[in-house]
Structure formats: C-alpha cells, structure tokens
C-alpha cells in the first residue's frame, strides 16, 4: 500500500506542476496522465477519497481530477482531436500537398493513378521514362534522340528528351502528368520545360535525389 501511496503522490505532483505553469485544464488532460508510467499499475484499486484529499492540500481544483475518474473508480480514457495545421501558416503555403492529395482528382483521375514521368539527370546523360500504375509506357534517352558523346550532357539534350517523352505520353492519350526528378545534372530543368512544350499539363514536381554511396567513391581529381 505504501508503494501505491507514493505513486499517487507523484501523479498529483505532476498535475500541480502542470497547472502551476499556467496551463489550461484541457492541455493538462492532453498530457495523458492515464498513460503515464506511475499510474500504469493497478489503477482499479485506487481509493478516490484519498486522492482528492491530496489535491486539496496541493491547491488543485477537484473537478479537473474527477473528470478523469468515473464512479466505479476506474480511469476513463478520453480521446482528443489533434488540431490541424493551418495551411496558410505553413512554409510552402498551398504549393505543398498534404493528406488531402489522395482525394484530389484531375479530370476524373485520382492523383495516385496519374502517369508519372521519371527523369534521371546525371552529369553525362539525361534519361526519362513514363509509367502508369507501375506499367511502362515510354522511355527516352539522350542517345535515342540523336545526341552523341559529350553533347549528351548539354541542356539542349535535356530539352529534346523531355519533348520526346512528352509527345510519346500524349500519343497514348494522357494529358495530365506528374514529374519525378532525380539527380543534379544539366538537363534537370530543361527536361521539365520540354514536357510542358509537348503540350502536357504538369500537376506536380517531385525531387527524388537521395545521395547514397555504396563502397568507396573515386579519387578526387587533381586539377
């Protein structure tokens, strides 16, 4: 019994410390005393009268504690709604999508089911491929567009690759498209512009550059 008294004392102390800091009753309840470690053992055997006496000593109002404990002596579990973030206050504003994107439809097509164009812009080349629900539609590279050797790493090559894949996707009957970009190369922005020039509507741009190294990289150049 002495250990239970100690537990109760720590619980009431937590409450008082929270209330003394000028917090509301709601925020104190949000701190979820029910799930705290000190109250996890045998809550059903708690004597309510004893608990209330302690709180009066500490100067806490009765009601705040009694709300959590029902008549049977068991601790109620209450759910609290987490307030949603205000869209206008977020750093990106309306440009950054949230959870609502899954209900978003473009011309009757869900956002998930839209065709995606993956662009890989490396230092040497630009590659692009289009997918609808993980099924490949088309793919284009700098070599297929007629560029050779060092011309493949120019931004003109990137734009032609973008234009080629855009017209390929348009032939299959898709008008709206999402773009996923990978890598920091010369053909990064021109490829996106080329897709737009082909006549496609770009709905979102995603970046997927995850710089990762397996093993040891090459020796730095001596210039």
């Amino acid at each position: 019994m002495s250990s239970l008294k100690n537990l109760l004392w720590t619980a009431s102390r937590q409450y008082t410390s929270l209330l003394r800091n000028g917090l509301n009753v709601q925020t104190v309840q949000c701190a979820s005393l029910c799930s705290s470690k000190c109250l996890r053992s045998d809550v059903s055997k708690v004597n309510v009268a004893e608990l209330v006496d302690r709180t009066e000593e500490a100067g806490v109002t009765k009601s705040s504690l009694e709300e959590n404990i029902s008549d049977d002596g068991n601790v109620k579990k209450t759910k609290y709604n987490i307030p949603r973030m205000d869209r206008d206050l977020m750093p990106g504003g309306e440009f950054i999508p949230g959870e609502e994107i899954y209900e978003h439809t473009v011309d009757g097509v869900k956002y998930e089911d839209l065709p995606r164009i993956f662009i890989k812009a490396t230092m040497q080349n630009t590659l692009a491929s289009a997918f609808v629900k993980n099924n490949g539609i088309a793919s284009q590279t700098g070599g297929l567009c007629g560029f050779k050797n060092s011309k493949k790493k120019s931004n003109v090559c990137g734009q032609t690759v973008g234009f080629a894949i855009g017209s390929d996707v348009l032939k299959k009957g898709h008008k709206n498209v999402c773009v996923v970009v990978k890598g920091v190369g010369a053909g990064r922005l021109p490829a996106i512009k080329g897709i737009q020039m082909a006549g496609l509507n770009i709905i979102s741009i995603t970046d997927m550059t995850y710089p990762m190294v397996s093993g040891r990289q090459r020796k730095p150049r001596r210039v």
Partner: protein
Amino acid sequence: MRSKHVRMLARTVMVHNNDIEKSYNLLNRILSNEGIVNEAQRLKYFEKPCVQRNRLCFERCRRIYDSEMKRKVNLLSRKNRVDPHPR
C-alpha cells in the same frame, strides 16, 4: 498518410496554372536549405578524413559566427527601444 507515399510526398511541390518556374524555385530552395544539393556534390568524390575534419570544423565555426552576427544585428535593429535622448 500512407507510409509508402511519404518518401514521395516529402519533396513534392504542386504546380498551379502551368507556372513551372515558381514551384521549381520553391523546390530548389527547400533542397538547398536541407543541404541535399551540397551533399550530392560532395559525395561525387571520396573525401579524405583530414579534409572532412577541416570541413566540419569550418562549418561549426561558421554556424557560431552566423548566430552571433544575427543576434548582434537584431540587437541593433530592434524597433521598440527606449529613446536615448528624451527631452
């Protein structure tokens, strides 16, 4: 939010009215703030341990200098200060 799409949505920027450049600039700003562009550039070649040590030291010093400078500028440019020459 579905867990498999989190990686995808983490760096997604929507395009309004086919205005690419606005949203692309926003994406670039996010990337440079997070240091992804620098990291991709750095991982191109192998970084020797002595170079790495020097770089980390430099970054640490720079962070301290920046924060101190910011504090100083804020102190000087604060608006609701007491008038030093009251009549």
